């Protein structure tokens, strides 16, 4: 295993009380595999990734759990040690490339910055590495592009530059937070293929965060579905799509228009209500107010994540057979 997250909990202290943004999340990612974290806005996907990078800011705090990366618990690392990890061993790409790249500096500066920080290279070698990084993400005429500023590029191109910056030091883990949400489908297809190619060539592990189930099915080896700060279902990609077991996952999949092929304009399946606010979570299973199968026990007790079939974990009383 490259990374093992155990019972991670991140809480935010606010005026409204303690908000449990991430509440006991565990997962693992082997070398060269992709784990997709899926869920709706506010379910704690991004906070989880920030915790891995040690970037949770005040008023947030990692209150429990372990993150074992390459044999050591990085939650115990000092800030100085973490700086060596970020960008070199773990790096991240964000949703909006325009706001994550610095508009005041050229691409050249931004790629070399990360290389200078982590690798001791001579000027020529540095330049060669920067060019190589751009070539790797299939940017045409890299020499010319190096001297340009991010605003001169299109959205897809910027996203490639960001991937190039992230991959420059050949990290073991790449965290991608909604990397294609802002892109057109045609460009999205290009970027997804690029990431899959890099994964294959470099044996990089990817933690892919998205809300788009179709993208998940293209990218994932394993999938974890999150709801209100918890993982409700975890399985390998094929069994999750073939046989979703948690009512939330099932509802999400059935509500997609593409699942209703051949029945145009028919009523789409939808999950009633909306995601509860993290400051006012319902008692028991947090999904029960929206769940079609909810029973008395769901309103009182919280189901735990249990292995229902080999490798397929679900947190639901119904699949457990209690109701």
């Amino acid at each position, binding site marked *: 295993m490259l990374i093992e997250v155990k019972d991670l909990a991140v809480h935010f202290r606010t005026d409204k009380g303690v908000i449990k943004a991430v509440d006991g999340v565990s997962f693992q990612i082997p070398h060269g595999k992709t784990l997709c974290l899926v869920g709706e*806005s506010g379910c704690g996907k991004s906070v989880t990734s920030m915790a891995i990078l040690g970037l949770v800011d005040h008023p947030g705090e990692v209150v429990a759990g372990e993150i074992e990366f390459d044999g050591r618990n990085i939650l115990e690392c000092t800030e100085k040690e973490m700086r060596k990890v970020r960008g070199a061993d773990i790096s991240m790409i964000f949703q909006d490339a325009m706001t994550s790249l610095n508009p005041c500096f050229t691409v050249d500066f931004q790629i070399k910055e990360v290389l200078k920080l982590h690798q001791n290279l001579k000027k020529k070698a540095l330049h060669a590495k920067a060019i190589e990084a751009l070539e790797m993400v299939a940017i045409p005429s890299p020499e010319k592009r190096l001297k340009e500023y991010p605003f001169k590029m299109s959205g897809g191109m910027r996203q490639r530059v960001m991937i190039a910056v992230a991959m420059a030091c050949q990290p073991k883990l790449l965290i991608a937070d909604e990397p294609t949400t802002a892109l057109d489908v045609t*460009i999205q297809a290009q970027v997804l293929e690029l990431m899959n190619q890099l994964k294959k060539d470099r044996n990089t592990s990817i933690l892919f965060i998205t809300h788009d189930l179709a993208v998940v099915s293209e990218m994932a080896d394993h999938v974890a579905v999150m709801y209100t700060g918890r993982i409700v279902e975890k399985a390998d990609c094929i069994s999750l799509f073939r046989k979703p077991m948690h009512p939330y996952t099932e509802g999400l999949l059935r509500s997609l228009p593409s699942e209703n092929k051949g029945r145009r304009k028919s009523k789409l399946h939808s999950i009633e209500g909306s995601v509860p606010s993290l400051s006012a979570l319902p008692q028991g299973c947090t999904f029960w107010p929206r769940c079609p199968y909810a029973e008395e026990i769901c309103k009182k007790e919280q189901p735990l994540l249990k292995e229902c079939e080999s490798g397929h974990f679900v947190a639901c009383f119904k699949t457990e057979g209690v109701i």
Partner: protein
Amino acid sequence: MAEPLLTVRNLHKHYPIKKSLFQRPDVLKANNDVSFDVSEGEILSIVGESGCGKSTIAKMILKIEDQTGGVIKYEGKDIATLSRKELREYRKNVQIIFQDPYSSLNPRWKVGSIIGEPLLLNTDFSRKKIEKKVRDLMDKVGLLPEFYDRYPHQFSGGQRQRIGVARALALQPKLIVCDEPVSALDVSIQSQVLNLLIDLQSEFSFTYIFISHDIGVVEHISDRILVMYLGKTVETASVEQLMEDAYHPYTRALLDAVPEIDPERKKKRILLQGELPSAVKPPSGCLFRTRCLYAKEACKGISMEMKPVNGDQKHLCACPFAGEFK
């Protein structure tokens, strides 16, 4: 055949881009010779990548912007020549639902006033009657009565979009333009709003112009699809026809790029190379030829005229060679 509700012919919208005082400005052709019809009760979807001119069409239909050339006719009348009074009437009949439910609602107004504003401005209803109407509308779109006195920030994205829908319905329009109405919403909420739109349509038989980049949504909701590329239409057909028998290479690449939900059936796809060329300096001839797999010398000289495919007047395609490599 009955007269279409809305007819668009040879629509052009050009934006001048100033370089300096003494130079002739460059021209960005946001829409370049776009023609289509919308019949009553029909759902027409306009799809394409960002920057292809989808939203510009919506703006011109609503007369937020005036076209540079071409005609938009509503019930047979050119909307550019409407008198003030007629224009008022027109605006009652044509409404829009915006993409972003956060920026399209006034944060300082209560829900009741937001939905009631069109009624206040366009009818001479008494305050009481307006309130009753608003409450009816809220019930229609699935908002609880106690929401009447709340502010937009107290709602989630899906509920805000319902407020936007209620506002658009207030004057009982005939044509509703939906500019990416669900793309800012979460998956589980998306289907709720889509269901609402479909329900309302079957109840009031609205005509929708549905602008979206999400092919899955478009396929589900529309009767007919219009595909655009760099300000030009490249193909139009009924949904069934387009999904099964897309003709233009761009349409096929676009459909191919949509990720498949089934992980066991990884599809072999034709990936589009490169990106959208600049609309200020578009390629000569066929606009798509710089990214087209089948591009050849002759493509530089064609005019992208929409011609019937196999003699079918309802299936038009802008590629004269599409039949050859199909």
